């Protein structure tokens, strides 16, 4: 009988044996994944349950609302911004603050600033922080932006504050830009002096409109003097930089510094290098909301990394 069997084929016994090994591989992988997830959850719970020396910090990021934009990419930016605000209000807790990382308006008109400011009063949070995008300073070096949102800021609108033991720095890199974002000497001096008295274990969060890393310099997605700014932050054990501008999620880690580009509430832009320029993308019907969203950020003392949770507009 065996002489008639094609030597290229497997016997039933061999097939069963290999199937058993394959089943064992899948089963072990599933069990292993579950164990790792449980351990990760237990570590997180233990850290959360430990009596915190500093309270947990939770905040939300929204970005690039472009109030005033008209185009096929999103015919109703006001509507999607309202949805984003409602989504922040529906998080199930009151965020310690909400940050808007720029391009609040599309053309920086007084009416658009009034409208976006009015809309943001609907956010259920004790504090709202903003930085300007290049669309918020199209013709006046950010003067109208500062009139609307510049209270308590320094220089051209930069500032810092502390919350729950975390030091937060808001930077303006959309003024004096040529191709890339630019911070300038005054702001670099501010950063250096601002962080000088802090101990190296102070968690740092930096937010800006244009990325502080070279995400895609050909499209201006970077900041020409960010290296100098980041050099002042290298000694800190945890630095998290949040930005807008690129209308898409992107994460990069460089040593102790992690960069997170946020998405938009208005319209998507192409991925870096897709096409000649970052023009608004018109998505097929029903797909726009998947490209828009908000971000939740939380920090628990004892954890090195901030926890980020991305939400698309529902």
């Amino acid at each position, binding site marked *: 009988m065996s002489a008639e069997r094609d030597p290229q084929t*497997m016997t039933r016994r061999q097939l069963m044996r*290999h199937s058993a*090994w394959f089943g064992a591989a899948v089963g072990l992988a599933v069990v292993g994944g579950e164990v790792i997830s449980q351990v990760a959850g237990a570590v997180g719970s233990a850290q959360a349950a430990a009596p915190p020396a500093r309270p947990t910090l939770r905040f939300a990021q929204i970005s690039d609302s472009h109030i005033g934009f008209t185009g096929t990419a999103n015919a109703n930016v006001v509507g999607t911004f309202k949805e984003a605000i409602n989504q922040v209000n529906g998080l199930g807790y009151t965020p310690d603050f909400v940050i808007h990382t720029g391009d609040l308006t599309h053309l920086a008109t007084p009416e658009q600033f009034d409208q976006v400011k009015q809309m943001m009063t609907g956010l259920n949070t004790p504090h709202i922080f903003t930085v300007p995008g290049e669309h918020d300073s199209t013709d006046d070096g950010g003067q109208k932006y500062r009139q609307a949102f510049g209270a308590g800021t320094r220089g051209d609108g930069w500032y810092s504050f502390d919350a729950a033991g975390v030091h937060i720095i808001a930077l303006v890199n959309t003024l004096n830009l040529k191709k890339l974002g630019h911070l300038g000497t005054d702001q670099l001096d501010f950063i250096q002096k601002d962080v000088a008295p802090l101990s190296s274990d102070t968690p740092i969060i930096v937010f800006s409109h244009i990325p502080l890393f070279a995400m895609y310099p050909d499209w201006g997605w970077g900041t020409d003097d960010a290296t100098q700014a980041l050099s002042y932050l290298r000694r800190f054990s945890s630095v998290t930089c949040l930005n807008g501008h690129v209308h898409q999620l*992107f*994460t990069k880690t460089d*040593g102790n510094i992690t960069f997170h580009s946020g998405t938009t509430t208005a319209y998507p832009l192409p991925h870096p290098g897709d096409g000649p320029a970052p023009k608004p993308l018109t998505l097929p019907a029903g797909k726009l909301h998947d490209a828009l969203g908000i971000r939740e950020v939380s920090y628990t003392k004892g954890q090195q*990394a901030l926890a*980020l949770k991305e939400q698309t507009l529902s």
Partner: protein
Amino acid sequence: MSSTPANMMSSTPTNLVSSPAANRSARLAVRIGIGATLAISGVIHAYLYIHGYQYIPTIGTAFLVQASVFCALAVLVVAGGPAWVQWAGGVLSVAALIAFALSRTVGLSGFTEHGWEAPYGPVSVIAQVLTVVLVAAAVLKPRAVTRATR
């Protein structure tokens, strides 16, 4: 035994030159080496997942899958699983190395990473390279020996 595809799926590939005892020892050493390097890479990814990477979109899930699959394959290789378990480890190690290279250059699912501080990156890369080398040795050696004795 001839080196048919069905036999190559066996956990005991044929070596027609050396003594059977020496062959068995060599195969066992290679198998343990593959299992150990797979386990090292898997455990490193599990550790990184638990300590921060779980929060990175897509990459966190990829780390969890990598860790669980590599650890599972490590156990099965050491337990004497068929040759395809070793191949799977080798192929997945190549994929992991490619993913690592992408994350250091053009980015992977929106994630890029720079810097070599901490031992995890280099150790994981070395372990995956060793896995590929050992799997290649385990797969190619029996074939070469078989050809030489024809």
